[in-house]
């Protein structure tokens, strides 16, 4: 290696520019293009048409209302689980935590499909139990309330994880001092724990709100049949009535979604500003409260919530896959494996979707890891303004809804790339690049925190002995950050495997992902096939999470999200 940047910083010259280039391509270019198209639409006056359409304001209203209600529901469920599982001596914390995080890993349209199968006059499950409502009863989930409820269920784990991280670092001595002075449990909770856990609650609320505004799977399955359109589903339908103005229209719509999410994040900032939460003392308020007789109330309550969130919808999904035709009650006589046979052995699209989703997910996870190890090295070794800007540019695509990123990438790659003269639109590569952009931050987080824990002396010693950059990277750094890297790969893999929002706009012949395949099967009226495929996907997710659970003992603390 020749030419070092400056003494004491032994990075090769190309490293930081390489990272800056990646960030430019993955983050700056698409967002700048989106802004340009939006501004061009403004300049041409086309924006007046878009902004004056009542459908737009209705969709904006539905987006905000469902997101706010959904956030409130996810806060209620998430906080209940976080407080009980982190601060009390409730039994079965491991399994409870594992199952509670599961809905986050399941594609939202699968959640929606399962709940639809579970309720309303169409439910094969209720029919089998003779509990189905009479003919003509509306499906209660096809409503604003239904969308909000599922938003809450889908995003409660996000609140749980955010709050739990904060609760883990509560100062124990504050609680103990209050206890010794004779404060009741309720008093301790109200005056000490609640104020100190506010940042976690607010952060969880913000993440949940942003995820709700960008969610496509749930309003697509629950909203479209009732003509309730949110902004993401409106963008999707704009593409179903394609005109020369469509690209400009969706750019404007994406900008509105982006503004709503940014407004949510700004409220979070305002809420946290001017408060100082630095605490001293021993952290780790594990099991601060003995539940005593209350355990008999809370344990069944938590398991009952989990039953309704997970077990009942999953059984409904399986029941929906086993009925021979719609409206036929499910009995041992009528049960048929036709849907599973069709999905596994006849439909070419299933295999295509599995191959696409798995290869996209592994390529994203492994490919990003290479970039993130280099990026984390560069960002932790250079601590200047430029690297801080680069770090925040990496964060932006992740904090914007997936559908906004998808639109941005369509705009960038709709025309053939100059010089090379190939068009990525309609190929698998555009989906891959969009995934790289959207999940960069997810992949980076565990790796950066591992770098912060590295002792620089080791690498320094190797450098003084004349080891080259790559030699140091492979022999010293990689082994030390291996556990975090493994976690980063698995997390990105799980998230990318179940993604629908981005691929819903970018798929084409032969590039369907699992999310797209399930949505399409349901859309063509084959909800038995959609249910069968969904059930398989849920099984796959559970197996992957169990693998991660088995690996957890060998990983550093805090890497597997649902473990303490």
């Amino acid at each position: 290696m020749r030419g070092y940047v400056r003494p004491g910083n032994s990075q090769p010259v190309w490293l930081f520019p390489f990272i800056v280039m990646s960030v430019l391509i993955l983050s700056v270019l698409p967002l700048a293009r989106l802004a340009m198209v939006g501004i061009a639409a403004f300049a041409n006056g086309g924006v007046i048409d878009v902004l004056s359409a009542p459908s737009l304001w209705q969709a904006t209203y539905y987006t905000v209302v469902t997101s706010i209600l959904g956030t409130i529901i996810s806060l209620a469920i998430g906080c209940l689980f976080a407080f009980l599982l982190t601060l009390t001596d409730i039994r079965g914390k491991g399994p409870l935590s594992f199952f509670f995080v599961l809905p986050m890993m399941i594609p939202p349209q699968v959640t929606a499909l399962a709940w639809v199968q579970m309720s309303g006059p169409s439910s094969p499950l209720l029919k089998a139990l003779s509990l189905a409502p009479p003919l003509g009863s509306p499906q209660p989930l096809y409503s604003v309330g239904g969308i909000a409820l599922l938003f809450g269920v889908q995003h409660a784990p996000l609140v749980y994880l955010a709050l739990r991280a904060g609760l883990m670092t509560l100062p124990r001595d504050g609680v103990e001092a209050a206890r010794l002075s004779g404060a009741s449990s309720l008093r301790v909770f109200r005056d000490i724990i609640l104020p100190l856990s506010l940042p976690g609650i607010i952060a969880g609320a913000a993440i949940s709100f942003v995820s709700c505004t960008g969610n496509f799977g749930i309003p697509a399955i629950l909203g479209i049949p009732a003509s309730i359109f949110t902004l993401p589903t409106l963008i999707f339908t704009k593409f179903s009535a394609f005109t020369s103005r469509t690209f400009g229209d969706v750019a404007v719509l994406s900008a509105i979604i982006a503004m709503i999410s940014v407004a949510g994040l700004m409220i979070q900032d305002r809420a946290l500003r001017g408060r100082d939460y630095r605490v001293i003392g021993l952290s780790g308020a594990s099991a601060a409260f003995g539940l005593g007789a209350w355990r008999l109330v809370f344990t069944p309550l938590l398991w009952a919530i989990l039953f309704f969130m997970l077990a009942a919808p999953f059984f409904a999904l399986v029941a929906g896959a086993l009925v021979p035709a719609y409206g036929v009650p499910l009995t041992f006589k009528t049960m048929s494996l036709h849907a599973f046979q069709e999905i596994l052995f006849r439909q070419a699209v299933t295999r295509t979707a599995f191959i696409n989703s798995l290869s996209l997910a592994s390529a994203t996870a492994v490919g990003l890891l290479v970039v993130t190890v280099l990026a984390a090295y560069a960002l932790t070794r250079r601590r200047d303004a430029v690297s801080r800007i680069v770090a925040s540019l990496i964060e932006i695509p992740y904090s914007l809804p997936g559908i906004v990123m998808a639109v941005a990438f369509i705009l960038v790659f709709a025309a053939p790339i100059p010089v090379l003269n190939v068009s990525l639109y309609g190929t698998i590569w555009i989906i891959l690049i969009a995934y790289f952009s959207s999940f960069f931050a997810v992949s980076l987080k565990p790796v950066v925190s591992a770098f912060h824990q590295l002792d620089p002396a080791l690498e320094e010693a190797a450098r003084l002995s004349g080891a080259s950059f790559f030699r140091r990277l492979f022999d010293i750094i990689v082994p030390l950050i291996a556990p975090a890297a493994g976690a980063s790969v698995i997390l990105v893999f799980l998230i990318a495997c179940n993604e629908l929002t981005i691929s819903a706009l970018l798929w084409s012949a032969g590039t369907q992902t699992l999310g797209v395949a399930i949505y399409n099967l349901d859309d063509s009226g084959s909800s038995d096939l959609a249910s069968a495929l969904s059930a398989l996907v849920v099984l796959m997710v559970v197996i992957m999470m169990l693998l991660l659970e088995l690996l957890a003992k060998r990983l550093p603390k805090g890497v597997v999200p649902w473990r303490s």
Partner: protein
Amino acid sequence: MKTIVSAAALLAASLFAVPALAANLVLYTSQPNEDAQATVDGFMAANPDIKVDWVRDGTPKIIAKLQAEIQAGNPVADILLIADVVTLERLKEEGKLLAYKSTEAAQYDASLYDADGYYYSTKLITTGIMYNTSAAMKPTSWKDLTKPEAKGLVTMPSPLASGAALIHAQTLAAVPGLGWDYYKALAENGAIAAGGNGAVLKSVASGEKAYGVVVDYLPIREKAKGAPVEFVFPSEGVSAVTEPVGILASSKNAEAAKKFVDYVLSEKGQEGFLKLGYIPARNGMKLPEGFPARDAIKVLPIKAAEALKNTDQDLKTFSGIYGSN
């Protein structure tokens, strides 16, 4: 520690097969998944050297996808097999289709294909009324759906999602005594229009709604499987689409595409449709189980050229009545 990473990397490497991009033929179709797969399987059995990839979506959506690809300079599809001739007529006028004179056309009524060979009808799909067997009223005419007994219990596909639904609305709009006023009366009676025909089937078979406007083969097929539904051909007549096939001018596999057109028009291909429960378009074919005799089905006429001209206006009118986007 090292082992975990290398294991993860190995796992990823083994999974990362380059996805199939190089299929011989790409078909864009609006048939339901199972039918599309069956059609493609039949063709590949007859032509083992040609591989077909297919994509399924509602006609308006699949055409939108195609238009977006054309604008991006990268149309993926070689063949279209979609609901109605009006859509293909529009593509023909835009110069997007390839003319091909299939010898199979001799077995078809001249009204069923384009004289220059730009597209050929493959089957007859009529739109009538399905009802749940537990419904109180047994409808026999379109007018029955505006009766108080059907209040809030009617569902239909949206022309924004289904090609057959658009043709259906345009057909009924031209019938004296029905027209757009009929659609207004339906809306006042609490009818909803959302999604495609699949959604209507689900909603009626499951009892969320009692009556549905829907394409014929879905309920007839489901009834045979035991679903609690019936299908009627209303007394005023039914609208029909003919699911035409056409080759895109941009196709790089025109020879293979021509073979596909020949196959779906051939006796063998038509028998495949018959097995799936569709009325074949070819002369001298039988009708599927559960259908009345062909001459007993009264098909309402539609003027394709006029329908094409009025499409945007009709969609606006429909959206205006049903408040959908």
